[in-house]
C-alpha cells in the first residue's frame, strides 16, 4: 500500500482541545474484534453522527492535546478505518502521535487550524510540505513538516509494512 501524502483532500471535522481516546473510541467497544464493526462507534460521544456521515479522505482538525489518555491503538485505527485522510491538531498526546504513524494514519501539527477552518469546509493537506490549504479562499496554514523517517513509515503503510521491508529481512 502506498499513500498519496501530497494531496489529501476532504471535508473538515472540527474539534476543540483535549479530545481524549475515550471520546474517539469508548472503552466499552475495545473487545470488538473487527475494526469495521468498531469504527461504527468512532467519536460517538462528541459527534454522534460522525460514523454515518464520514466520507473517504475527510480530515479531522482539532486543538491542543488530541488523543490523550489511554494507549489504545484502536483510536487511530478506527479513524483510519473510517476513511480519515489526515488528522491535524495544534498538538498531539504522546502515545497517540506514535500510534498514528505506526498504523499509517497521517498526522500534522499545525497551529490555529481548528480556529481557522469551518466544520464541513473542504481542505487539502500536503504532508510533505506540512501545509493545509482551504479551498474557499486558498489560504494556506503552515504546519510542522514530518521527518523523513515518518514519511517513510507512512509511505510503507505503517510500522508493520516498514518492519517487513527492513528489520524483518535482517
Amino acid at each position, binding site marked *: 500500500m502506498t499513500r498519496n501524502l501530497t494531496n489529501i483532500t476532504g471535508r473538515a471535522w472540527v474539534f476543540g482541545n483535549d479530545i481524549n481516546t475515550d471520546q474517539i473510541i469508548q472503552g466499552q467497544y475495545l473487545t470488538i474484534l473487527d475494526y469495521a464493526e468498531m469504527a461504527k462507534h468512532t467519536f460517538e460521544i462528541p459527534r454522534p453522527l460522525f460514523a454515518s456521515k464520514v466520507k473517504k479522505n475527510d480530515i479531522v482538525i482539532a486543538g491542543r492535546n488530541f488523543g490523550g489518555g489511554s494507549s489504545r491503538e484502536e483510536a487511530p485505527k478506527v479513524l483510519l478505518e473510517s476513511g480519515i485522510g489526515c488528522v491535524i491538531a495544534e498538538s498531539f498526546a504522546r502515545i497517540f502521535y506514535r500510534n498514528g504513524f505506526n498504523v499509517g494514519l497521517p498526522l500534522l501539527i499545525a497551529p490555529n487550524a481548528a480556529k481557522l477552518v469551518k466544520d464541513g469546509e473542504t481542505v487539502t493537506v500536503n504532508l510533505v510540505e506540512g501545509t493545509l490549504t482551504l479551498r474557499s479562499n486558498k489560504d494556506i496554514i503552515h504546519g510542522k513538516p514530518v521527518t523523513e523517517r515518518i514519511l517513510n513509515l507512512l509511505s510503507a503503510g505503517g510500522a*508493520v509494512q516498514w518492519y517487513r521491508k527492513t528489520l524483518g529481512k535482517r
Partner: protein
Amino acid sequence: MGKTLAEKLLANHTDDGKATAGDIVEAHIDLLMVHEVLGSRIIPILKEMDFKHVWDPKRIIVVNDHWAPASDINSAEIHRRNRNFVREQGIMNFCDVDCGISHQILPESGLVAPGDLIIGSDSHSTTYGAFNAFSTGLAATDSALILATGMSWFMVPETIRIEVDGKLSKMVMSKDLILLILKDLGPDGANYKSIEFFGTTIDNMDVGPRMTMCNMTVEAGAKCSPMMVNGYVESWMKNVAPTRKWTSTKPDDDAEYIQNLTYDLNKDPLCPMVATPDNPTNGQSVIEVSGVPIDQAFIGSCTNGRIDDLEIAAKILKGKKIRKGVRLIITPASRETYVHALHEGLVEIFMDAGAIVTNSTCGACVGGHLGVLGAGEVCISTTNRNFRGRMGHKDSSIYLASPATVAASALEGAITDPRRV
C-alpha cells in the same frame, strides 16, 4: 552538563550508552507487559509480520486483567488467544484472570527492579517509576515489534523537576498530592516529558503511595516518572526478589530541567482533593465540591486498590453503614492484596458496612464490568480517569478522589471531606 534520571536510565539500555534529551535512541527492553491487547490486536499484527518466536520468553509477562474473569464472549475469546499464545511461545510469566491488575502484579512478582526499562501495552505503565525504573506505555504495533526484536525506539524526554517537602496531614493521601500536581500541570503539561520527584515527602513515602503518584503522571501526558530508591523500595525488593541484583540510579546534581515545581506541605498544608468531571486535571479542594450527591462509590484500580488504600477505607467504614441507595464497590488490586485484606479482617468490615467486594480486575475503571454506570449516574472513584463515558454511559459523571474521601462519601451518600467523619 549533568544527566537526568530518564537520560541515565535510557542510556544504560542503548548500545553506545548514550541518551540525551531530544535524541532518538534504540533501546533494549528489560521487560514487556501485554494484557488483553495481545489477543485482540497484537496477535493479528504478528501474523501480518510473519512472526515466528518471541525474542525472549523470560522477558515477557502476559496478564488477563481488564475484563477478568471474561465479561462477554469477545473477552473470553481474547483470553483464550492469550492462553494459547503463552503456551505456544513458552512465555515464562503469565497471570490469568485470577491474579489481578498488571501494574500491581509486576512489582509483587519481583519483575520490576530499580534501573529497569519496562514497557507495557497500557498507558499506566508509568507506575513502575516508583521503583526507579524507566517505564512507559506503548500500544499494539510497538508491542508487536518488541515481541519480535526486544528493541524499541524512544525520543529521550526532557524532564520536569518536582520537589515536595513536608508531611501529609491526617486523611490526606498521595492521591490528593498527585491531583494537586496534575491541576498545576494541566492535561498536556507534561506531554512527551519525564517527571522527576524530589523532596522529603517522596523520600519518606512507602511504595504503595509512590505507585499512586507515578501511575497518574500520564494524566498530564508524561512519558515516564522515575523516582529515586528509598528505604521502602529497598525492603520491598528484599522481600519480593531477594536474589535479584540491581543498582539504584540517581540524576546528576547539575542535570538540566525544563521546569521546576515546588510544594511545601508544612507551609501550605494540603486538603483532600477531588477532580471534577471530565478530566483528572480538574482538581479542587474537597470543600468546594462537598455535598454533591453520588450513586456509586468505587475503591480499586491500579491507582488506589492496594492494601494501604483498603486499610484507610476500612478505618473509616468500621462499624458503620453506607448510605442507603448508594453502592460501594471495592476491587482489590490483586489476589495477593485481596488475601491480605481477608487476613486483616478488612473484607468483613467492608461487607458489614454494606459494600460489594469484587475479585481483582480493571473492571469498573474501564467501564468493562463490575461497576458500570448508567445514564445520569454520579460516581466518586479512586481510579485515574474521569473522561466522559469512561466508566459507562456517556451521560454519567465521575469524580476522582482518594480512598479516604471515597469511603467517607459512601457513608454520607454525597462527596464528603474524610477529615469530618
